């Protein structure tokens, strides 16, 4: 009896979990289906066309926004992981670590509008014009807590006794870190870089408030939607974003698998 009951709960649990996953994943389908539909406004599988994609590179505002997105991704991908790494080391080595932990996780808890607005006020009061750098700062801020958590997780599997061993053998702090710890937590650092780029690639509200005349792909999509609603080209662009994000995640996953094997 009890075996059957537990089998039943198990089945219900799996069904619940699968339904949950379906609800999260299904919304990824319609934009992709729409983007290859001849009509371009609804998923319509009577034919497949790539003409909406072909129209993307023609639009100079859009290509400009793609260039901006790539530059921002580079800034975020290069700046965030070292900051996250330093933060994780600070939490391990400095006093007031609880407070420091809270401070570095704080950007997670500030709503996007409030962070964007506060940054916009801050830059304008200092007389700093909106630029790639203001967008970069806001995106690094948003990506930092995620990168920080990833690096922390990676560091938690590292036993500091290895550092002690390096010190005993006469290595300085820097050398011990570079030669012993960094290679061991490197996958975590790479993961934090990829994740930061994904985060910044999918950011809209914070960026929109500090970008000035610039546009990223996301803010371009959002402003087009506010002005004219969704067009076939926008669906194509959204599909590119979805597929690119999934590809980045897949790359991350394969990299981890590969490393796990070797």
């Amino acid at each position, binding site marked *: 009896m009890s075996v059957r009951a537990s089998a039943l709960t198990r089945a219900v*649990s799996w069904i619940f979990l699968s339904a949950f*996953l379906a609800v999260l994943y299904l919304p990824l389908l319609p934009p992709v289906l729409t983007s290859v539909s001849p009509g371009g406004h609804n998923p319509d599988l009577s034919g497949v066309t790539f003409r909406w994609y072909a129209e993307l590179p023609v639009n100079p505002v859009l290509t400009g926004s793609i260039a901006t997105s790539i530059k921002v991704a580079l800034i975020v991908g290069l700046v965030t992981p070292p900051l996250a790494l330093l933060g994780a080391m*600070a939490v391990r080595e400095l006093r007031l670590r*609880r407070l420091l932990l809270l401070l570095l996780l704080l950007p997670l808890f500030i*709503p996007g509008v409030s962070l964007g607005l506060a940054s916009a*006020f801050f830059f304008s009061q200092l007389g700093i014009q909106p630029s790639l750098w203001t967008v970069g700062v806001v995106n690094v*801020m948003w990506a930092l807590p995620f990168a920080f958590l990833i690096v922390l997780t990676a560091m938690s599997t590292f036993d500091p006794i290895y550092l002690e061993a390096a010190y005993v053998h006469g290595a300085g702090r820097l050398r011990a870190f570079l030669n012993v710890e960094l290679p061991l937590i490197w996958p975590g650092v790479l993961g934090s870089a990829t*994740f930061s780029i994904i985060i910044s690639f999918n950011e*809209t509200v914070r960026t929109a408030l500090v970008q000035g005349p610039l546009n990223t792909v996301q803010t371009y999509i*959002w402003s087009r939607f506010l002005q004219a609603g969704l067009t076939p080209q926008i669906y194509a662009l959204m599909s590119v974003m979805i597929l690119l994000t999934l590809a980045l995640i897949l790359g991350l996953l394969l990299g981890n698998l590969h490393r796990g094997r070797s």
Partner: protein
Amino acid sequence: MPRPPELLRYGLLSLPGLFVGTFLLVPAGLTFVISFWERKGFSLHPAFSFASYAAFFSGVRLEVLQISLLLAVIVTLLGLLLAYPVSYFLAYRVRPRTSRTWLFLLSVPFVINPVIRNFALAYILGRTGPVNQMVLALGLTDRPIDWLLFSNFAVVLGLVVSYVPFMIYPLWLSLAGIDRRFVEASWMLGVPPGQTFRKVTLPLSLPGIFAAAIFGFVGTFGESTVPIILGGLGYQLMGNTITSALDVLNYPSAAAMSSVVTISMLVFLLIWYRLFDIRGFMGKIVQT
């Protein structure tokens, strides 16, 4: 007196904290200050005026605040009801390897831009969308259901779907971190499973519940795109009310509303900080 290399080390280690302090705490403080400033024409003038707050708390926007609060509470509760069983199942009922895969699968949709996901949701719920087509095909109604889109229902659904993935991770983290021996002890003392859950597991997972609630609440309370996409024309929550104040260049008003949101969030965060040890909650990833 620390030697120069030590100074450099402390300098480097304090960089992340300085970064957040300079580009988050100072701007948030500045926003609070600006909320007391006055607006003359299109420019800002330093002042100490409560005009923005008075306008906010006496006007129609107070209603926006109330609705936003109510929706945030509803979405947070719904999110917890959905996320807790999932996290519990992943923490206790599947092998660690499998649970990592599931956690990963659950977090992938979250990194896809919520704006794009909500556009898709708007299509799914629309008059000609798949849900209505299915309902019509099954003959459940003879006309498309109107309240699916541009309604409270759509906004709540959109907010729950947007923020639930955010809530699973802290819940799972605290549930997986519970020492199993407590549960086993309760079991050996003959306490039935339901009571063990209520008296042992649930209280021990409170830090995670609280953290998840903060994520859900803060995200929902300040959300500015979901009400526009799924609420339709004129649907106002705090987030898009702030952006529409910006559109008419009413900076002090936007600053005041943003401060209300930020301060309410800080209050929750402080309660969390006072009640629970974050290190205990993150025991798995922070060495103490």
